[in-house]
C-alpha cells in the first residue's frame, strides 16, 4: 500500500516535470537552445494563475489566462532574445537565457514582493480516495491535466503534417522554407505552446503548494534540462515517460536514499547512470 501511494506521489511530481520539460523539449528540439528562462515563464504562470484566481474566483479562467499570456510572453522572448542569435554557437543562447532567467526572477521579486503570494481561498483542497490511495483533488487534477495536454500534443506532433514540418524545420530551416513551410509561424507556435505548457505547470504547482515565489523556477529549470536529455532525441511521449520515471525515482529515493543523497543528487545520479549506459538517452537512436 505504501508503495502504491509513493508511486502515486511520484507520478504527480513527474507530471509537473513533464509539463515543464515538454515545452523545453520543443524549444530545444527546434532551435537547440537550452532555454533556461523557460523556468521563468513557469513562475510567471504561477503568478498570473494566483492573481487571476484571487480576482475572479475561477481557477479554470486563471489557468486559461495564464497559458495565453505566458504563451505570448514566450513568443516575445523568442522574437526579442533568441531570434537574433540563432546562428551563434549554443552556449551563447544558454548564457543569454540564464541572464534572462536571473533578471526575470528579480523582476518578480521587485513587482510581487520577496515573500511570494498565495491563494486567498485555495481551490481543490478536498481529499479523494482512489484505488485506496489518498490524494488531494489538486494532485488528481494535475496528473489528469498533464495527461490530457501532453497526450494532445503527442498526437498533434506525431500524426500531422505539421509535425513533420516541425521536424524538418529543426534540421534545415532554410530548406524547410523552400518547400513552403512558414518557419516563422512554426517557431512562434512552438514557443507559444511550450510556454503555455510551462504556465499550466506553474498554476498547478501554485495550487499544490498554495504559494508562488520568485525563485520557484529554479528546481524545474535544471530538472527539465535533465529530462530532455534523458529522453534523447525522442518525441513528446518520450519526454512524458522520462519525466514520470524521474518523479517516481525521486519519490522512492527521498524515502530510501535520503540519508545518502539529496533529491537533486538522486535525480542526477539516475541521469548519469542512464547516459553512461545509453549515451544517446533513454529513447534516442544509436
Amino acid at each position, binding site marked *: 500500500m505504501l508503495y502504491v501511494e509513493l508511486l502515486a506521489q511520484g507520478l504527480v511530481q513527474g507530471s509537473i516535470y513533464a509539463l515543464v520539460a515538454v515545452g523545453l523539449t520543443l524549444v530545444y528540439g527546434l532551435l537547440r537552445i537550452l532555454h533556461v528562462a523557460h523556468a521563468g515563464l513557469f513562475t510567471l504562470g504561477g503568478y498570473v494563475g494566483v492573481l487571476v484566481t484571487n480576482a475572479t474566483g475561477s481557477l479554470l479562467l486563471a489557468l486559461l489566462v495564464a497559458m495565453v499570456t505566458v504563451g505570448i510572453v514566450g513568443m516575445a522572448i523568442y522574437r526579442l532574445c533568441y531570434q537574433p542569435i540563432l546562428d551563434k554557437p549554443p552556449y551563447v543562447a544558454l548564457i543569454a537565457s540564464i541572464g534572462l532567467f536571473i533578471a526575470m526572477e528579480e523582476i518578480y521579486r521587485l513587482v510581487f514582493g520577496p515573500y511570494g503570494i498565495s491563494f486567498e481561498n485555495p481551490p481543490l483542497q478536498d481529499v479523494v480516495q482512489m484505488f485506496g490511495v489518498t490524494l488531494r483533488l489538486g494532485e488528481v487534477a494535475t496528473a489528469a491535466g498533464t495527461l490530457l495536454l501532453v497526450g494532445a500534443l503527442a498526437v498533434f506532433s506525431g500524426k500531422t503534417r505539421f509535425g*513533420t514540418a516541425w521536424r524538418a524545420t529543426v534540421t534545415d530551416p532554410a530548406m524547410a522554407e*523552400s518547400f513552403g513551410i512558414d518557419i516563422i509561424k512554426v517557431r512562434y507556435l512552438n514557443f507559444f505552446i511550450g510556454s503555455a505548457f510551462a504556465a499550466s505547470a506553474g498554476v498547478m504547482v501554485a495550487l499544490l503548494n498554495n504559494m508562488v515565489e520568485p525563485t520557484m523556477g529554479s528546481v524545474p529549470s535544471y530538472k527539465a534540462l535533465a529530462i530532455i536529455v534523458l529522453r534523447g532525441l525522442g518525441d513528446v511521449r518520450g519526454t512524458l515517460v522520462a519525466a514520470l520515471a524521474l518523479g517516481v525515482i525521486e519519490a522512492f529515493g527521498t524515502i530510501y536514499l535520503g540519508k545518502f543523497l539529496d533529491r537533486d543528487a538522486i535525480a542526477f545520479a539516475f541521469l548519469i547512470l542512464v547516459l553512461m549506459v545509453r549515451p544517446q538517452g533513454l529513447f534516442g537512436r544509436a
Partner: protein
Amino acid sequence: MTMLQLENMDCGYGAFHAVHDLSLTIEQGEIFALLGPNGAGKSSTIMSIAGHVQLMSGAIRFDGTDISSLSARERVRLGIAVAPEGRRLFPDLTIEENLTVGGYSLSREREAVNREIVFTLFPRLTERLKQPASTLSGGEQQMLAMGRAMMAEPRLLMIDEVSLGLMPKMVDVCYHAINHLKSQGVTILLVEQNTKRALEVADHVCVLESGQSVWQGTAAEAQNAPDLIEAFLGMAKEAS
C-alpha cells in the same frame, strides 16, 4: 514566353559579391543549363533565385513580376523549387517524410499524386521508405533530392549538380526524369559539371566564370564553339 528573367543581378554573402551583373532569360518550358568552373557562382545564382542568397542589386522577374522582395516560402508558392547543391535533405526524416515536406505547399490529394510520379521515376526510393535520409548512399540521396523538389509541383525546377556522384545508369535515370518533366511543361534550370551531357539536353546555355556571364547562346551553338568549350568548360575531346 519568358518565365524567368535576371536583370543585372548581383548577389553574394555579406560584403562579398559572388555574382556580378548577370542578365539572362529563361523561356517557359525549356531546359536552361548554367555551366562554369568551380566557384564561378552557379550555385549562388540558383540559391539567389530561390531566395536564400542575398540579392545585392538588379532584379529577378518571374512571369514578368519582380520577386526579389519575396521570401523563399512565397517563391515556392509561385512554383519555384530547388534541388540544391549538397542535396540538403532533412537527415533525421525518413524518405517518406522528406517527400511529405516536399509537397507541403500542396493539398493532400496533389501530394499523393506527385508521390506516385516520384516513385515511378525513382523506384529505388520505394524500397526504403522508412530509412532516415542521412543513412542513404550518395546516389539515393540525389534521387530523393530531386524527388522532393518534384513533390512541390514546380513550374521552374532548379537542379544543382545533377549527376554529382551518380553512376552512369543513375545519370540516365535522372536525365530521363528531367526529360519527362520537360514533356510535362516544366521549365528546368540546371547546373552541371558534365558539360557534354548538359549540352545534349539543354536548349539554352549560360557560361559563368568568376561570377560573370562570359557566353550565352543555344546549346547547339555551344557545341559548335570548340574554343568556348576548351577555354571555359575544359571539356577535352576524348573525355566521355
